């Protein structure tokens, strides 16, 4: 995921609301999808997205640039999502089907089954890397773990999901 134009970021940090709106426009879909994957609830995802941008606005002056802006933003979104989940005590371990997707229904069912098969510890890096295209370093920044941990969790997530889907082919 690309970071914003540094000039936009600088203006937003100085309190330019127009620049901040550019950031919201650029990243709101990604933040919402990320929140949705955490919460599995459209309304909660809306709330998390709003709260995440509100917190980002509040703390933007404190963003030191020692990680990518997108990693920082996702970390905030993740914290908001965790707060929401804890506050509502609705941690979703079972993945519910998503209404309105255009994917092949069979593939969707398979993916849900696969996601069910992995713990949130493995699902989180999988989502960040596979769905949102973050690098291992960025995912490590978001989740507050080491790059090696991401590497190992990605492998375990894939292995567990493939076992669940039985997608591995017969050894040739």
């Amino acid at each position, binding site marked *: 995921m690309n970071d914003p134009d540094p000039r936009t970021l600088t203006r937003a940090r100085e309190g330019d*609301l127009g620049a901040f709106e550019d950031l919201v426009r650029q990243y709101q879909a990604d933040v919402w999808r990320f929140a949705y994957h955490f919460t599995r609830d459209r309304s909660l995802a809306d*709330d998390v997205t*709003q709260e995440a941008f*509100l917190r980002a606005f509040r703390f933007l002056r404190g963003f030191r640039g020692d990680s990518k802006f997108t990693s920082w933003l996702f970390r905030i979104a993740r914290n908001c999502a965790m707060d929401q989940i804890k506050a509502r005590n609705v941690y979703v371990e079972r993945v519910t089907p998503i209404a309105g997707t255009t994917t092949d229904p069979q593939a969707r069912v398979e993916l849900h089954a696969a996601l069910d098969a992995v713990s949130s510890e493995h699902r989180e890096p*999988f989502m960040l890397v*596979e769905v949102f295209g973050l690098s291992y370093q960025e995912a490590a920044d978001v989740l507050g773990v080491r790059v090696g941990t991401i590497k190992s969790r*990605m492998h375990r997530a894939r292995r567990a999901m*493939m076992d669940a889907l039985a997608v*591995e082919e017969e050894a040739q």
Partner: protein
Amino acid sequence: MNHEQAERLLSARIDGERLSTRASASLEQHLETCAECRAFERGAYRLREAARFEVAPAVPDLVDQVMTAVGAEAERPRSRLRVVRPAGRRSILPRLAPVAAALVVGALIGSLVVGGPWQRPETGSALAATEVTEGVSAAAARLDAYRATFVIDERHLSPEVPQRHLTMRVWFEAPERFRLDVVDHTDYPMAATPTDLKLLVDGSTWYAAGPAPCPTATCPQRESVVRNRLPFSTAAPTPTDLVLPISTLADADRLTVLGRGTMLGRPAVRVEVPFERAEPLFPFLSIGGDWRPFFPNDRVRIWLDERNWFPLRWDVYPATGAERDAWALRFGLPDEPSLRSVFSVRALHVSLDTPDAGVFDIPATNSSQDQGARAVELGDVRRATGFEPVAPSMVGGLDRYRVVLPRDDAGGTLVAYANGLAFLNLGETRSWNGDAPFGPVGVQAEEISLTGGGVAYYEPASQDHGRRVAIHAAGTDLYLESNLPRSELLAAAAALPVQGLPMPDAWTHRRVGAATAERASLETARASVPFPIELPTALPAGFGLASVELVDAGFGTGVTLYLRDEDADAGIGTIRLHLEAASALPPATSAAQSTVEVDGVQGRFTPDRSQLEWIDGGLYRSLDAPGLALEELLAIAASIGGDGTGG
């Protein structure tokens, strides 16, 4: 290379991670001969395909919604600071702007918090903070009797006791009978003294009992009794904010209306204040027992019955930020998400029924403290004091309630007025020869021109006392102390049959160590010093200039400005700004002092005095306030002279 190693490398390569040349070569070699790993690679790409299709749910366009909330946030004061109103005129705009902002932010944040099954979603319909403040204040005078039962849930007392459950019962009968019982129902995992508390007030007698806070399993019981108590004594207080949060919600500037909903089946409005403002809603913390700590900026969200303004539920939500995190670490608190209540008080039952006879009976005790207030009939005052006090039958709409002769007031009298929860004390003496106003008001109080003529000197309320006014008149000196709003207190002062005079010279000229200080108007001060006197334009909400002093320590005349909250001091205290011509900072006086940049020049910060000092353009400036942090002092310093008008 085994399968496990190969799959790990494959997984990383699929994700675009660079492999070393050697690892890459080994992997290729392994793949050539390992069908299982080739299957893993194909399977991983199929998963990717499925996962990336998976993210197809329609994403709502939230830009407008987010920016509305962000715009509102941008209008809110940073920290506790806000642009100060123009001198001498209180604009309604700074009061209303944060309310509008709060409604948007409140509606947003409010929607995230889960309530009980009785709670309806809030609508965020407009209700101004001033309406809440005025509503609570007006309700105070109408209340004759009250009783209620609450449950208290507390989190994180200690790692061993993550959750506590208590009940609290409250009884009140106007004007000064009150009882509070707390019963601890916690099932402690170890030997512990339950936090069972009792507080009773019956006019002139005050009683409190509970375990002393202690780190051991068996804590000693403490019992305090005050007899011959002064009416509405703040030294032996009645925690009536539990009945109506008059002190907590006195200041509309520090109150955020979050929205409306239903609580206990009643239409209710939810407001938010920082914990430091809401302490009167937690009187049990200081009666005894062990309680969890709270951070001054933790948010207290209060549901108020919209018909009679009784508090029905209040929750403490942790503040956010590095300062709070460091504080929590010091207290050994676990991670506390900002959207989860850590302390909750919920009403189960509230009624206006008169408490049963005997509820306010004070238990027999051996020892007691004597406040020395001797109750007398009004007709007997002349015989005891030699004068008849100014004592109308009604002041500020309140009825005369008690007349006492305080032990230590230079032959003075104290007449108490009350109605419901509202009170006003009127003290008087005819023989005052002190060097400051009679009563508790200090010489730096704000001078007020009363309607109908005359002047009075005003001080805002604090956690320890009500709003106060001193009046110096020909042949008599008076003071008033009350929980009435500022405007009503000043109206009551103006209605007294005396004409207030300016403070005499003996009070306005004083010695401070080797220096002399003289109270002056801002105009006089400006004409007396060779440098411009510029006021800060960013001050905490509600703050304004209270008084000015010319100070001379033998190095030329300096000026001290005293800035205060107009309504109620929420722990910031008086902000002092001292200006004096100088070319270098005074010698260091504290080991804790550090160098800071103040508005582009090098200055000095003394944390134990919350004092900032710097020199700019040949002018020494010292800014201090007991309750402000460095960041807040710097913001005030940077705003000095900002509007160019100098106040």
